[in-house]
Structures are given as C-alpha cells and as structure tokens.
C-alpha cells in the first residue's frame, strides 16, 4: 500500500493542497487517513483513480463519482466470488482492494458491505451466507494474526454476545478486534456465555475497558458476565457495541454506546480510555498534592 502526503497527492492531481482539502470537505473524496502526527495520508490508488477520472469528466462531482464506481468494482467482484463459492477468487478480490486502500478501509468499504449484501440478498439460512461468513471470519482472523504486536499500554476485553459465526454482528465484532489490534491495543475476546474462571482471565489481562459486543445473547446472560468481570477487576468503564435496540436502557447506566462502524468504534474506544487515564492521572496528582500540602502543613505546625 502506497500512501501520499497532501502535497504529493496535490502534485499528482495538478492542484493546490488547499484545493485538495476543499474537495475532501465538499465531496468526501479522496478520503485520507491520518498519520500518528495527524497529517493526511492519501492512498495512491484513490488519487490515481481520481486523476484518470478528471481527464474524462465534465465536473469534479462526476469525476469523483466515476472514481468511486471504479473502486466499488472490488466489492462487486468479491460478492461474485463468494456467491460462486470460490474462496481463492475472493482472496484475490480482497487483495485487489488492499492494493488501493488500507486494511481498515478495505474491511469497512469492501469486506463488511459485501457480507451485508450477501446476507440481505440470500438470507441468514442460505449456503451462500454460510460460506461468506466463514470466509470473512477466517480472513479477519488471519489479518489479526498478521498485525504487529501491541505497542500501547492499553488493554480491552470484548465480551462476544453474538450467536455464532453466522450472526450478522460477528464479522463486525471481528473487524473491531482487528482494528483495535492494529491500533496497538491488547485485545482479549471471550464469549459472554463463559462466566466460570473469568476472574483469572481478567487478572492476567488487566483491561482498561470492557466491551459488550453483539445483540444475540439475552440481557441477563450479558449482565452476569459483566458482573463477573467487574467483581474480578473492580469498577471499570463498559462500552456496548452493536447491541441492538438497547440504546435507551444503556444511556441510564453510564455505559458508553460505541458507533456501529468498526473504525469509528475503535476511535471512540481510544477516546474513552484516554479520558479514563487522564482522570486517573489527575486523581493521582491531586492526591499527591493534597498529601504534600498536609505533610507540609504538619511540618510547619511542628516547627
């Protein structure tokens, strides 16, 4: 995957960097990622597709539309491969998508929409969905194994409340795991059915936040699992991901709702953890200041 800085992408398109940023605001394309220093990084494939489309276009909008259509071809070819039960061709289609996009965007813009489309078109009890869901789960796990080791001092435990591999939430939960791992977090994913021995797992993993993901398991089962985790690790923030229509109820318990998109959810998780760590640092600093003040006061009193 080749990335371009704003100035490089602007030079390739023969426009100014300001124009490129204006296009991003107005058309949402090309859509950059951010470097660790928050600078824009454009994928070469998108910029090249737009450059070619501009040569043949009548307006920027129509050129953007044409460039997007070209990139959407990856999704169509993946659908075609999966409904034909051709795993190798599906691997090739996602590889083609990866040539133009990052892993995160390939998953969000090609893999997950493809799986959703197959579920919508053929239904959850179809062989096509069974094959596609299995292939998607395998691919996401393989990508997770290839991710670099964790670099952040951040750890999360995911309580998987999806039914099984055929649950429509399952690929999205795997995608969230993958994005968190790729963002440098330590991730432990467990079924929310398994309560026995959860204390040991939590004691070893020391999570900063617990995520309840998936909408299949009943509230009681999920609550029992969350209670067991809190009992073992103490009070800690809990976030909920793709847990259906429980938005209203969760709002009253102080639990954070994560956005349904995996990359948005991963960013929100990092924000929650950062806020929690900041609060902890402030609490420690104020406790230290209070202790110093009281010990200083004691010394003055003794003098």
């Amino acid at each position, binding site marked *: 995957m080749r990335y371009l800085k704003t100035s490089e992408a602007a030079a390739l*398109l*023969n*426009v*100014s960097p*300001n*124009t490129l940023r*204006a*296009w991003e605001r*107005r*058309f949402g394309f090309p859509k950059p990622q951010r470097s660790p220093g928050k600078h824009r990084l454009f994928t070469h494939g998108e910029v090249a597709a737009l450059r070619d489309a*501009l*040569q*043949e*276009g*009548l*307006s*920027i*909008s*129509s*050129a953007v*539309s044409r460039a997007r259509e070209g990139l959407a071809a990856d999704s169509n070819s993946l659908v075609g491969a999966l409904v034909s039960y051709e795993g190798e061709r599906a691997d090739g289609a996602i590889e083609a998508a990866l040539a133009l996009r990052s892993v995160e965007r390939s998953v969000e813009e090609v893999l997950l929409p493809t799986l959703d489309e197959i579920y919508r078109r053929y239904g959850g009890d179809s062989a096509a969905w069974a094959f596609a869901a299995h292939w998607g789960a395998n691919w996401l796990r393989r990508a997770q194994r290839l991710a670099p080791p964790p670099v952040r001092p951040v750890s999360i435990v995911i309580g998987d409340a999806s039914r099984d591999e055929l649950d429509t939430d399952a690929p999205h939960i795997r995608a969230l795991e993958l994005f968190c791992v790729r963002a440098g977090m330590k991730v432990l994913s467990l079924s929310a059915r398994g309560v026995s021995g959860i204390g040991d797992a939590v004691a070893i993993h020391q999570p900063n936040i617990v995520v309840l993901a998936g909408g299949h398991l009943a509230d009681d089962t999920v609550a029992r699992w969350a209670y067991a985790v809190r009992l073992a690790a103490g009070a800690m923030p809990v976030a909920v991901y793709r847990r259906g229509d429980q938005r209203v109820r969760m709002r009253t318990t102080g639990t954070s709702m994560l956005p349904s998109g995996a990359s948005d959810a991963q960013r929100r998780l990092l924000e929650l953890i950062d806020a929690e760590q900041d609060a902890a640092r402030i609490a420690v600093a104020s406790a230290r200041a209070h202790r110093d003040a009281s010990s200083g006061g004691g010394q003055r009193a003794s003098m």
Partner: protein
Amino acid sequence: MIEARSNTRRGLLAVVPDTVPDDSPRVSFCSHCGIRPAFADISSRVCDSCGMGLILQSHADVAPAAGDPFLVLDGSLSVCAVSAAAENLLATCETDAVNRHVTELLVAADAEAQGAANLAVAVTWAARGDGGARRVVVRPTNTFGVRLKTRIASCGPPTAALVVFD
C-alpha cells in the same frame, strides 16, 4: 464506370457543412463558477479560481458568464455538472444532482413542444455535438408557475450539452 454510377441514381455519402454556421470562437469556462480563465493551462483542467470545477469549452455566444446558472448534461440526459449559481436557483447540490436524470431537476414548460423546442431533443442534439444554440423554456420539476428560459448548446470535452439559464 461513370455511366454505371449515374445509372444507379443513388446519392453518394459526402461530408457536408453543418446547417448552422459555426464561426463563433470557442471560449473556456469553469463548470462550477463559470469564470473564463485568462489563459488556457493545458496541464490542468481544474479551475484556478474556485478549484471546484473543470474547464470546459463552448462557443462564445452560448458560453455562460461568471456567476451564470447552468447545467451540463450528457447524451443520456444525466446531470454531469451544476454550477454554483444553478445550485442556488434549483435549490440543489451538485453532489446530489450528478448522475440523476435531468427530469428530476427540470421539465419542459411546454410538454408537447416538438423538434428543437423540446428539451430532450435539444439536449440530445447538443450532447451529440451538433452546432448552434437552441432555446427552450423549462420549469423546475418541483415548482409550478415558474418559467426559465434556457439556451442549449454543445460543450466539452467530452462532448456534452450545456444548458444556460438566461
């Protein structure tokens, strides 16, 4: 041989001049703001002034002036460009309007007009590259009681129909 040709009495294919004189000079304009660039920069088609449009060409007598409302349509009557002024006039946004059929934005005021006065015919001819401008009265699809005079002519590249609101 010559006798045989004369005996067939069939017309021979030949290049004939356009029925409409094409002596008007061509000018460049931005597909978004309508500004005519001072000099043609062949290295980039993007408008230097606004950065939001591509530079197109049309005959000087039909090309829009800066700030004029206009649309660009292709041969299948799909919207390809909406100028900034046309966005205000038609209460739409180019990003929403592009690739939609023109009838979702405009319809002919006289639905029974024939020939060049018919919106679809005029656009199709212009998008085919036929010379000359045609005048058609239209109305916004979602608004009654409003009449808008337009001039429709060819523009490009690639060849398309330019609909300028007078």
